[in-house]
């Protein structure tokens, strides 16, 4: 019947011609496949556009009271919003980056986030064994993002959210796409303006263990990198900055792996750090669970951030009391004196944590 209708005949003819153009058919099929995969992988893109997120992080300057520094366990594990529940009038920024190491430049950039006029400057360091390795310092995640931002074009910055939809799949994830009944597949990562990337992913307990095993081959924690942190802590203390550090909680398997392969000696680091005037915060890793054997999900991150903020807040109050009891003005310009005070009170206050 269609052939007797001239309009129908034309449509049929056009459809046949279109189908004959195999390039077009292929492009349509490929777009459909990408759309199906994006839909099936159930990524929920939330928060700040990824490119904007990284752009903000690498261009922040001198507007915080507290900077939290470290690698991906900080990036995903510390929520400035949650911290501000305890540290109410603090401007907190999360300066964590994937795979970053403590290079002098990174430490300087972290310190540079603090507002010079702030009276309550704090730096919180997340000390992971990997962040102290030469490889992490060399392939610095912070520097990578900085260079990427410099290179990124305007389209990428505006449409960065699409990047998540077409981000590479792991083999296991790709096999999951074909499962009809899927449970526990709520993926999302929410990038917040203060630099935290809160993640919800299905739990694969040993997902990260394998790569960490490789990460420490010919790449153990470096003494010179620890020295840089100790020197910076000492210097910052003299500038009136309170420096805290903690080992981000992770799975017991990961702790065991890192302690056996990385060459990191937590006790020795802690002694040196405290000797330089820093305050070490103990965190009990058994209270937290990870989604991949390494990183906390967003709920764990919020819990950890609250715990740290509570301890820091208590320390700050005690420190203030200690300063007052010695009749020292809180805004004393003699920063060396303040650092000495911090040293002595800091050691005392360790016991309270």
């Amino acid at each position, binding site marked *: 019947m269609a052939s007797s209708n001239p309009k129908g005949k034309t449509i049929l003819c056009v459809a046949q011609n279109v189908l004959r153009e195999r*390039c077009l058919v292929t492009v349509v*099929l490929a777009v459909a496949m990408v759309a199906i995969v994006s839909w099936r992988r159930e990524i929920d893109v939330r928060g700040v556009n990824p490119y904007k997120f990284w752009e903000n992080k690498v261009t922040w300057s001198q507007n915080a009271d507290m900077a939290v520094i470290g690698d991906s366990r900080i990036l995903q594990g510390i929520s400035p919003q949650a911290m501000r529940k305890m540290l109410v009038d603090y401007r907190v920024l999360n300066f964590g980056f994937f795979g970053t190491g403590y290079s002098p430049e990174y430490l300087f950039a972290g310190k540079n986030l603090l507002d010079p006029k702030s009276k309550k400057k704090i730096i919180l360091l997340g000390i992971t064994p990997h962040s102290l390795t030469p490889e992490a310092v060399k392939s610095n995640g912070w520097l990578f993002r900085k260079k990427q931002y410099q290179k990124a074009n305007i389209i990428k910055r505006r449409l960065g959210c699409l990047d998540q939809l077409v981000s590479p799949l792991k083999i296991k994830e790709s096999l999951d796409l074909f499962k009809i009944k899927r449970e526990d597949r709520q993926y999302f990562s929410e990038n917040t303006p203060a630099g935290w990337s809160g993640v919800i992913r299905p739990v694969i307990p040993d997902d990260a263990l394998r790569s960490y095993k490789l990460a420490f081959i010919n790449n153990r924690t470096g003494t010179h990198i620890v020295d840089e942190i100790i020197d910076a802590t000492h210097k910052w203390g003299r500038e009136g900055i309170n420096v805290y550090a903690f080992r981000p909680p992770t799975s017991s398997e990961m702790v065991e792996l890192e302690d056996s392969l990385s060459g990191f000696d937590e006790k020795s680091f802690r002694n040196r750090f405290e000797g330089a005037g820093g305050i070490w915060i103990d965190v009990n890793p058994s209270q937290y669970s990870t989604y991949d054997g390494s990183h906390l999900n967003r709920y764990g991150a919020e819990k950890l951030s609250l715990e740290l903020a509570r301890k820091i807040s208590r320390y700050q109050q005690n420190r203030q009391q200690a300063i007052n009891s010695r009749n020292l003005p809180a805004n004393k310009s003699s920063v060396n004196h303040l650092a000495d005070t911090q040293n002595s009170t800091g050691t005392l206050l360790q016991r309270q944590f």
Partner: protein
Amino acid sequence: MIIGSGLLDFLAGLGMLRFPRRKKLLLFGSILANIGTLATFKYLDFFIGSFQGLLLWAGLESPLRPLGFILPIGISFYTFQSMSYTIDIYRNQLEPTRNILHFFAYLAMFPQLVAGPIIRAKDLLPQLKTTKGTSESQRWQGMQLVVLGYFKKVVIADNLAPIINSAFDSTTAFPSSLYWWLIMVMFAFQIYCDFSGYTDIARGLARWMGYEFSVNFNHPYLASSFRDFWGRWHISLSTWFRDYLYIPLGGSRKGIWRGHLNMWVTMLVSGLWHGAAWPFVLWGGLHGGYLTIERITQWPQRLARIPGGRHLAALFVFTSVVLGWVFFRAQSLEQALEVFSVMLSFRHVEANIIRDMISYKASLLLMIMVFSELYVYLGLQHYFTIRMPVPRLTRPIGIALLIAACVYFRGIGNDFIYFQF
């Protein structure tokens, strides 16, 4: 740079037509300018560095310092194309074009400008003269080539790269020969997919524009002799060296030993063409050695006479080529020798450590590559083509799947390896 050297060769070509008696002089000028440019920008610092090393060894201080020139992108490729243009005119194998746009389109055709294939003026200039629209079949073939090229590059090569890079970034070589053999086999497929992927993209783009570039790779790892390997690997460069260096030197026409010498010169220059560093020269030398032994002993022919001999020959050639790649990939001569010694020591470590060091994805991709090469080696593609007629939509679905694979299984972006040459 490209405009300067291009203009010189364009004018030299016209000059040879106008002044046939000055042909030799014009050719000499063209070659001198091209080689001079290449030598200055690519090799001067290498020679200065080597000279410095020699003086240092003799306990003297060198008065020369490296100049630090930036290597112009694609210089090795367009210089060779430009030279072949004037040489072909000199040999009366090519009529010089009077159309400067055609000449520069030949010299700077964007898909292949940076990393080849090295096209010949006698192949492309006639195509430029008779430009016409493209057919659906050409567009489809072009698309298949482009997608296949991208798949080879972003899925295979870029996913293998991090494991290989991390192996070579280590300050000391991991003491397991099995591990290094695996790494080097991976590198063999990485460089193959990286380079042949680029060539496929270039050929596909050219086909979309209505042009035809010659095939540059023909399953090189299936070669059953070293001569066969060089007839399948970077064919446009191998034939360039054959036509413009080996044969002018006399080829194998001037006696056995002169033939060997010419072949060695060609292989060493070919190694140096790839990079201004001693490991590349050694790589060329190693292949020169392989070819010499092959010519003298005729082992591929002898081996082919025994049952399964052809397969043994292919395996031996592949293994030897993989060994040669150590010099190509190592960051220094010392590292190359260290890796080489570990590979040949047959020292072993626990298999589970190696399993941890090489990701599942990389192992899977390696297997895909090995099976796809075996598929061709065993001639299965002919079997399936004859026995199983393919429905019209099967190929578009296959290519669409490859596009989706490029999107979702892409590795970390890396430059094409041959961009550095």
